[in-house]
């Protein structure tokens, strides 16, 4: 690579931009910034800079662009595909200090935040004001900047959509150091190309997000959660389509297999309402009106029973519901606590979920690995934990690429794609051409070159520039 190293002179210039204690370069302190939650090897940045303002970010990018030093923006480091791992070293910008909620605009139902705000804190804050920020990824300690960069989804996708649907405005620093404001507080916008939509989901390759305006919705105070066990995965997944066919769109419909429930129980050290069935569907029902909630519970419950549910358990208290959803949210962390895991993030049209899950299990069997299937059944996004367990390293390293190739081939053949919400980053880069045709990838590369002529911003992610 053509990149230059961060030398003494560059360090001195960085010290003129931010406070000295916001520059970290000794190896122990930068260890935390060398990897994310994917299984790839750590790659150390040469220097970590904790910025406090947009202007600092702009000055750093101006310097890096002049000096040809790669820059990796990083949020919570909870990514699952290496998106924030600085594979060429260089400067890593951490947003841990840009973590303020700047304004809650109750008239426009919008909130302005800095990129380092944790999703958990954002949820807590707006819910105290009886509002909801719907995107709800399992990893609550991800930051909003990272969520926007991967177009994170989460559990409420089926009804509300994904992060993209809630980003109204962005302040972005370009790799060439200019600061631009995209979008804004207008609900409608018919004014030229939507550059904001290019930045969302760009995995930090086109610009650095320094501020975001997010759309909120009123919080439905009343909710219930159905916990529905099934004797097989097929019945569980076909129920989901049936519910939606019946024109009921619950804010969350999740699917979890038995192995996922059991690993969650071990991790949380408590029991879930039932763990003896092979598959489960979890459904959240919300409304302002108690009568309507009860009607929906009965309607959805009956659809479940018609589709061979073994039982339909109903949690109505907040505590019980939180216990169930925490069990769902923790599955990736829980599996990782027990060993090496490859996390797959296929998404297919909703009606193809049964075929996808059957295929995933067949592939796991073919390679002799155990897997856990769970995910956002309502929107067709299935996560699969492939577990290494006691397999030796060589065998694992040999098998995984073939296994992933099979899985992605399956997903694409079902008119799906290779990542629903985690991103391409580094770990899926080699599979990216399976999911997008040559012309599209060429256009993407051209766009990258226009934004970042020197290819300094998060290089080597999604695709390599030739």
């Amino acid at each position, binding site marked *: 690579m053509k990149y230059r190293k961060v030398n003494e002179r560059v360090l001195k210039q960085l010290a003129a931009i931010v406070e000295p204690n916001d520059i970290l370069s000794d190896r122990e302190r930068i260890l935390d910034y060398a990897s994310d939650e994917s299984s790839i090897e750590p790659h150390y940045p040469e220097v970590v800079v904790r910025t406090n303002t947009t202007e600092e970010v702009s000055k750093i990018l101006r310097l890096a662009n002049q000096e040809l030093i790669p820059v990796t923006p990083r949020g919570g480091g909870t990514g699952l595909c290496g998106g924030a791992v600085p594979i060429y070293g260089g400067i890593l910008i951490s947003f841990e200090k840009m973590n303020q909620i700047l304004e809650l605009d109750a008239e426009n139902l919008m909130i302005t935040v800095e990129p380092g705000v944790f999703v958990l804190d954002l949820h807590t804050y707006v819910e105290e004001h009886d509002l909801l920020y719907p995107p709800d990824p399992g990893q609550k300690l991800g930051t909003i900047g990272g969520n926007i960069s991967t177009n994170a989804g989460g559990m409420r996708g089926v009804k509300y959509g994904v992060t993209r649907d809630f980003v109204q405005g962005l302040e972005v620093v370009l790799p060439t150091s200019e600061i631009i404001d995209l979008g804004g507080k207008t609900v409608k916008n018919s004014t030229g190309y939507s550059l904001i939509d290019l930045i969302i989901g760009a995995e930090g390759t086109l610009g650095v997000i320094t501020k975001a305006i997010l759309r909120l919705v009123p919080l439905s105070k009343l909710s219930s959660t159905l916990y529905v066990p099934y004797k097989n995965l097929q019945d569980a997944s076909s129920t989901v389509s049936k519910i939606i066919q019946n024109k009921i769109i619950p804010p969350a419909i999740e699917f979890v297999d038995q192995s996922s429930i059991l690993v969650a129980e071990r991790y949380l050290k408590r029991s879930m309402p039932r763990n003896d069935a092979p598959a489960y569907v979890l459904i959240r029902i919300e409304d302002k009106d108690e009568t309507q909630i009860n009607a929906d519970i009965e309607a959805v419950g009956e659809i479940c029973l018609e589709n061979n549910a073994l039982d339909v358990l109903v949690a*109505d208290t907040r505590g019980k519901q939180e216990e169930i959803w925490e069990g769902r949210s923790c599955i990736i962390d829980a599996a990782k606590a027990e060993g090496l895991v490859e996390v797959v993030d296929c998404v297919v049209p909703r009606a193809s979920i049964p075929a996808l899950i059957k295929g995933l299990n067949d592939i796991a069997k073919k390679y002799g690995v155990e897997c856990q299937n769970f995910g956002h059944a309502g929107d067709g996004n299935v996560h699969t934990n492939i577990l290494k367990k006691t397999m030796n390293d060589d065998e694992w390293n040999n098998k995984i690429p073939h296994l992933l190739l099979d899985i992605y081939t399956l997903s694409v053949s079902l008119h799906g794609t290779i990542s629903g919400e985690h991103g391409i980053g580094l770990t899926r880069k080699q599979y990216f051409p399976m999911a997008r045709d040559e012309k599209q990838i060429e256009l993407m590369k051209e766009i990258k070159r226009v934004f970042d002529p020197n290819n300094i911003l998060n290089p080597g992610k999604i695709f390599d520039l030739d």
Partner: protein
Amino acid sequence: MIIVVCIKQVPEIADVKIDPNTKPLIREGVPTILNPFDEFAIEEALRIKEKQGGEIIVVSMGPSQAKQAILKCLAMGADRAIHLTDSLFAGADTLATASTLSKTIRKFVPKFDIILCGKQAIDGDTGQVPLEISELLGIPRISGITKLEIEDRKVVAHREIDEGYEVLESKLPVLLTALKGLNEPRLPNIRGILSAKKKEIKIVTASDLDSNTNQFGLTGSPTQVVKIHTPEPRAGGIIIHEDDPKIAVNKLVQFLKKERIL
């Protein structure tokens, strides 16, 4: 085994906000739930019935909305319910409440074996009503139980105390109050929810219990709530941060001396 379970509908406490200026509790728009302690009571009743057979009768005093909490108990598996609802019951203190409930039990379920209650309601938090019921009915009680066994015509219960637990025995009939740890309440299921609608909920008003209705509600309450206030939040503890443990200990000793603790 005839089991009476007394229950109460309460606000979901996590959602109750306190108005700093005037009113202590903002209940508007706050969801209501079955009192969590009562869930342990109903679950224990169900387990007894599953082993020994019998009937579970839910008794609750509350406005018409309290039917939701009653339906939950029926959905979990209780057989029938008595709903005491009448504007004359409003404003009852713990004694008037206990008196109303005990009259109801005496009149409508005279041959009960066990009365199960939650240890306390999470809104009022007094824990007085169950004990007053047992007094008024003249039966023994064991409060705050975390384990229960029934042999022939007696119960053996673990009762939580500060130092651990006591094992107490009582003959039937007896009143028991349930504490967290007694069991893990089941979630109602959809079949239960649908069948609950078909179960009997007997509506009982003040005049059904006694022609002298002065003894109910506010007029029948010897105690009154004069004022509700929010207690001052407790100040946080002191943490002594020192790299050198000697300095830290010194500071601690000085502090304890100053406070005349040492």
